[in-house]
């Protein structure tokens, strides 16, 4: 069994407190993870400047090249992970075994992380709008129009309290390294795999180990990362997001409530977009914040819901190694039963209809885990409670709503795909502050262009644009 030890600025730490990572279906331990408490995190964060210092020894161009090598290593090499050598297949198998995600989805998340690192130069070029990256090292530079611009680093390290079950989110912290900002990560208790393997790939590619801290542990360790690093991100529930709202030091990522809005000008041709809708709902087992949880249109909503139900309603549980598996397990069965109970409550409201009712039982309970099979519900009005719900399985509500009310009623929407050629609607969607990422045209909500910022620009989070004025000093008079 693999043992994963905490990493304290590149040095493995021998913890006396271990937690087992277990197989979601059998309950068998598959890894032993050494934990640390908040005291160790706090102590290390007082040395965080050394992590940035180690990265500043390299130019951003050198770091970008090493990131590209790390991408290749992450996706294809045998790497030292914890006390073992880990092949790609072992990584995929271990990640699937602890998170309940089908193996092909693990591979796809792995490819996504690798893609971001491989294209990190273009991504940074876009996120900085073409700024010379040496400005970030030096703190300022001349823009080319005789104007000095300054970006001041706000933190020596980026802290991150990572999720248990979403291996796709790691793309968000990867760009910190070429931006010469160290990483202090608390791996998710069921998904330590990506941060450990990624850090191993970085180090193997020549990024200084002193830039990395891995702090597995409980709430205490996570809390210390959030309070002791000047900039950190956390992944969690709506409650987590609300808790950190307005805190400029913490970027909280939670449910996305991503949606597809269908304009009146194209809704009669809704069948043309059926595949887009199905992919947006079903991909990655509906677990991501970028999965579509609401489809809004003024008419044909019942037909749209029925057609999607016809496609995803029959999806059933398959073994995680099956390339056709579409459903991830809930590794904590109570989460599935709790979610199922909440959905039943949604369905009890008048005007809400389960369009997948004829496709059999939705809650599948096993000894150590549970599954929820896909559900499509129809809501005859945005007033129905279900219109604003998002769950961690393929679940979508198709909401009947007049077009002129849509943007007022949708609420917070991480990805909003707007299917229309109506310029007025396009303009209004572009102006809506409820929509974070706006897709105009047939783009599934789950397909992100990494050359665009995601939930805020990481550059703005880690660096602050400020004034930097320079004048020549008078030449001293020789006496």
């Amino acid at each position, binding site marked *: 069994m693999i043992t994963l030890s905490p990493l304290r600025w590149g040095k493995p730490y021998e*913890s*006396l*407190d271990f937690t087992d990572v277990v197989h979601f279906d059998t309950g068998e331990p598959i890894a032993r993870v050494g*934990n*640390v*408490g*908040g*005291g*160790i995190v*706090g*102590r290390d964060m*007082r040395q965080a400047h050394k992590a940035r210092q180690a990265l500043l020894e390299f130019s951003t161009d050198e770091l970008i090249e090493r990131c590209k090598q790390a991408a290749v290593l992450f996706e294809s090499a045998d790497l030292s992970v914890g006390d073992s050598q880990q092949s790609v297949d072992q990584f995929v198998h271990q990640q699937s075994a602890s998170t309940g995600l089908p193996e092909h989805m693990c591979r796809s998340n792995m490819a996504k992380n690798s893609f971001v690192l491989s294209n990190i130069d273009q991504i940074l070029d876009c996120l900085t709008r073409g700024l010379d990256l040496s400005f970030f090292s030096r703190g300022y530079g001349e823009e080319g129009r005789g104007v000095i611009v300054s970006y001041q680093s706000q933190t020596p390290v980026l802290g991150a309290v990572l999720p248990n079950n979403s291996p796709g989110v790691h793309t968000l912290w990867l760009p910190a390294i070429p931006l010469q900002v160290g990483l202090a990560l608390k791996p998710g208790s069921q998904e330590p795999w990506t941060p450990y393997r990624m850090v191993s790939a970085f180090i193997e590619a020549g990024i200084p180990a002193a830039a990395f801290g891995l702090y597995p542990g409980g709430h*205490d360790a996570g*809390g210390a990362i*959030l*309070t002791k690093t000047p900039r950190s991100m956390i992944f969690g529930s709506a*409650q987590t997001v609300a*808790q950190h709202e307005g805190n400029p030091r913490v970027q909280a990522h939670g449910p996305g409530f991503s949606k597809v809005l269908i304009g009146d000008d194209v809704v009669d041709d809704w069948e043309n977009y059926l595949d887009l809708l199905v992919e947006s709902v079903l991909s990655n087992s509906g677990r991501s914040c970028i999965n579509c949880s609401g489809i809004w249109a003024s008419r044909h909503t019942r037909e749209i819901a029925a057609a999607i139900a016809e496609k995803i309603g029959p999806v059933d549980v398959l073994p995680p190694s099956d390339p056709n598996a579409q459903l991830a397990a809930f590794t904590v069965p109570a989460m599935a039963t709790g979610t199922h109970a909440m959905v039943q409550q949604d369905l009890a409201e008048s005007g809400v209809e389960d369009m997948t009712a004829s496709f059999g039982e939705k809650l599948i309970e096993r000894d150590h885990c549970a599954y929820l099979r896909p559900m499509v519900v129809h809501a005859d009005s945005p007033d129905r409670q279900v219109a604003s719900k998002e769950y961690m399985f393929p679940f979508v509500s198709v909401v009947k709503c007049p077009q002129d009310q849509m943007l007022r009623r949708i609420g917070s929407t991480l990805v909003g795909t707007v299917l229309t050629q109506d310029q007025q609607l396009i303009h209004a969607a572009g102006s809506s502050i409820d929509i974070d990422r706006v897709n105009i045209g047939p783009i599934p909500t789950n397909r992100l262009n990494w050359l665009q910022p995601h939930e805020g620009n990481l550059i703005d989070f880690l660096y602050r644009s400020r004034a930097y004025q320079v004048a020549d000093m008078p030449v001293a008079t020789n006496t």
Partner: protein
Amino acid sequence: MSTADGTVSEEVAQQASDAKSRLDEHTVKTVHWHFSEETGSPFWLEKKSELNFDPLKDVKCFDDLKKFPEFEDEWLRGGPVRRWVPKGHAGKPTYVFETGGTTGVPKSRVVVEDHWTDYELFSDTLPDQYFPKGSNWLMLGPSGPRRLRLAVEHLAQHRGGICFCIDLDPRWVVKLIKKGWMDHLEEYKKHCVDQAVTVLTAGHDVKCMFATPKLLESLGEALEEKGTSIPECGITGIFSGGTEFTPQWTKFCVEELLGGPPEEGGVYMTPTYGNTLMGLACSKPVTAADGYKISYYAPQPRAVTEVVTFDDYNQVVGYGETGRVKLYTLTDEFFVPGFMERDEGERESPFATYPWDGVSGVRPFHELAGATTVGVY
């Protein structure tokens, strides 16, 4: 000497046998005190009529306490509080100490002098080299309705010192956590620690202290941010307690906050385990060589800990095996014939210093762990 499988030397076996005899004798005496009309408390005298045995006749040894029904901590919630005062102590000044109480009615226990006795016995276990007689103390932890402040202050006075006290209200801390007001929590912790830093840097010759693990950690951090440390402030002896006092936390504390083991860093830290109901269990000396293992031993015969099976609370587990912690309090002020603590751990063998069973690896009982807020202060 004892070994992991529970086998002990002949000498320790004899000591354990003697200790068991003393416990049996003490048990009978205590039961007679609490169930005699002249000396017993109204609570137990009333409870006696509900029992299907006569405690005055049928309790002949410690194991006979298993005839009592499980002690329900609900009995301790609400009044009248005086029903717990044994008639034998009528008229004496009496304290009431509370535990829990973040919401609802807290559990309360009356005390006359038990807290002094418990801490005087504990004092005998402290090495004078690191807890010098006559030196001053700092008590950094919960006071208010808890007994800890008065007990630690008495310990300091008993050893000839004066105790500085800084209060922390754990009920407010639990509320802050439940409300998710983590900024307030940090500020409150800082408020407490700042006061401790002020005391320690004000020339009061404080050498010994009690602190909860969390506060000790924060204190160490705050001092280091000021360019000093716990050892540099003159602290040489610390006692602390709680389920968050784990081997890993001890390792961190000894190796990183205290500058190494006592002989290197100059600071001796000892864990304790207990609560308002039972008193104070001491620890076997904790060393790196032993993996910072923490084993607690109750102050027998005044209190007893057992590690019992999860499905039968009258059945003790084998040595080294895991079970739930069961506490007994057998003083002439308070009688608890077996209370199921909210913790679990492994049963430890007797050894020369404490020739009776101990418990190690104490942690929240797995069936209640999710509902318990631990390590909050």
